């Protein structure tokens, strides 16, 4: 900030050029320089994040390199095992639960997010228009997004009930089905259904973010393009898309990372079944940690290794998005 008054005040009270006594008096009168004030305001925030975000991550990585016990009894010592937990997850002798969960999460994420993007863009273009009671419509459309994921899972589990589900009933009445269909009982269909539910739930979120981005594009650009005879498609490709890039980055990151961490939906909808057909990575990691204390390693070691892998994949995804879509010179 280039305000002269602040500079005057800062020269009166520049640290280093004043005695300790003057400085203490200044502190007592709560007259701080910008730098001192920033330190005071940000220290609690940074300590908070250090304790509750950075320390746990590092501890997870550390725990993934050791044997682990769900609850450590006296006399039990964690032993360093190097990458053994990772080997057991990534190169298992028997069932490959991690790779199955990886496939499920990748399908779920990278089918639902592009679909939400397409539908969301369509919905955003619809909502660009103003009309009376638009806020009521908007609140209703946004409602699925605000619905708690696990409650949403229960709602859909009921609507997709194998014998008495309302979705089956509607499809039968429309003549699309002959009898009730058990959407959640067949491995492939269950995963498609779960993906569809999440598209239903979060398209409106995508739409409202894209709408904010669309409304920040100046109308004059489109007018100029129209005068030059550009088609609708050319306008979309050469004006809308490039100027929407920063918004797309935000929207994609905000949707991809939560989708990649899906837990409540498979937990409440199918419990990961049938078999492991809808077991996402986080469901797998949570079950490895809490349901499944293995014979040699406690579940926490396996869970920690799985959590570390999930973190690495999430950071890679974020990095790919940022490097492909971030353009600081756009504005």
């Amino acid at each position, binding site marked *: *900030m280039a305000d002269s*008054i*602040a500079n005057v*005040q800062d020269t009166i009270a520049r640290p280093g050029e004043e005695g300790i006594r003057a400085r203490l008096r200044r502190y007592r009168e*709560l007259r701080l*320089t910008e*730098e001192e*004030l*920033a330190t005071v305001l*940000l220290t609690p925030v940074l300590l*908070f*994040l250090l*304790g*509750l*975000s950075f*320390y*746990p*991550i590092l*501890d*997870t990585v550390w725990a993934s390199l050791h044997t682990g016990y769900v609850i450590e009894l006296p006399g039990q010592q964690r032993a360093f095992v190097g990458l053994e937990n990772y080997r057991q997850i990534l190169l298992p002798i028997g069932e490959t639960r991690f790779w199955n969960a990886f496939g499920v999460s990748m399908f779920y994420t990278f089918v639902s997010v592009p679909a939400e993007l397409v539908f969301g863009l369509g919905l955003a273009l*619809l909502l660009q228009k103003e*009309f009376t009671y638009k*806020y009521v*419509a908007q609140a209703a*459309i946004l*409602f699925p997004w*605000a*619905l*708690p994921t*696990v*409650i949403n899972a*229960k*709602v859909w589990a*009921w*609507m997709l009930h194998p014998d*008495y589900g*309302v979705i*089956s*009933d509607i499809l*039968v009445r429309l003549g699309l089905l002959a009898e009730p269909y058990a959407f959640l009982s067949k491995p492939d269909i269950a995963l498609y259904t779960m993906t569809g539910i999440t598209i239903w739930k979060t398209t*409106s979120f995508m739409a*409202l*973010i894209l709408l904010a*981005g669309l*409304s920040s594009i100046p109308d004059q650009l489109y007018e100029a393009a129209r005068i030059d005879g550009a088609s609708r498609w050319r306008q979309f490709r050469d004006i809308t898309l490039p100027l929407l890039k*920063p918004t797309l980055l*935000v929207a994609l990151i905000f949707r991809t*990372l939560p989708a990649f961490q899906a*837990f*409540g939906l498979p937990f*409440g909808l199918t419990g990961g079944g049938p078999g492991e057909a809808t077991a996402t990575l*986080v469901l797998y*990691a949570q079950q490895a940690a809490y349901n499944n204390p293995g014979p040699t390693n406690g579940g926490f070691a396996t869970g920690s290794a*799985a*959590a570390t892998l*999930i*973190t690495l994949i*999430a*950071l890679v995804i974020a990095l790919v998005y940022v490097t492909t879509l971030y353009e600081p010179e756009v*504005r």
Partner: protein
Amino acid sequence: MSVRDLTLEDVAFWEVGKRLGYFGSILAIVLISMFPVFWILISSLKPSGELFVFPIEYLPYTVSFENGISIVQQYPLTLENYETALAQRPVGQYLLNSLIVASGTAVLDVALGALAGYSLSRLNFRYKLPVLLLILFTALLPFISRLIPLYKLAIDLGGTPVGGFLGLNTYLGLILPYAAFQLPFAVWIFQAYFKELPDSLEEAGLMDGLSRIGVLFRIILPVSMPAMATAAIIVFIYAWNEFLFALTFMTEDSKRTITVGIALFGNQFSTPWGTITAAVFLSLIPLLLFMFFFQQKIVEGMTSGVGKA
């Protein structure tokens, strides 16, 4: 039909058709979005015998045209599912727990977020960008990677004097992690808002002899009520909806939040759909009210900084 053949009536029809199509599609999307709420309400009011029939009766009453027009009851409406749900499980307590945890998280994040957002948008200091990036970076970290250490910490603290309010089954035990996880979003909302404020606000305050802290507390924070409301609502919704940590940290039934309470309804042998739909509908009432009152703020919060960054 060539352009010349178009009459004024044709144009009017076309316009009416366009409007019908437009509002028709809006209405269709609203119906698709809200249908589950309607369906949960209908299911929760059905007597248990009516729940498990196929084809399904949708409405409790229909209009019959046999022997003139009359209204025919398809099934009686009943509150028995609500009575069972409230008798079996402390649904009210679940809702109260969720309210306490979500409000606590919102208050903490508004306080910390406002201070951090102010520093990061309106003060000059070294390491400003690295600090902002460090805070925003934590938003990228998966929750599961913080679950196990914090769970172990809560167990360890359980045996110490602070265990009564920081261990498992304590409100703060959930509020603190939630607040840390949502803090980057709160900081982002505040710094986007503060960036838009005119410099003259602070200049006037400093000119009048206020210290920087005085400017912050007497001028900046009072005018940032809109950002506070936005951040509080976004954080509140997140905390209200969270499931993974709530499931792990709240092992006592009386401390469970509504998401965990509903997810654990029933047992592995039977799923009491009537009572579940009743409990679900009870949990939807506050959310529905919230959405209709705060829709504008929610959209502002979700989209703050979009298109401006």
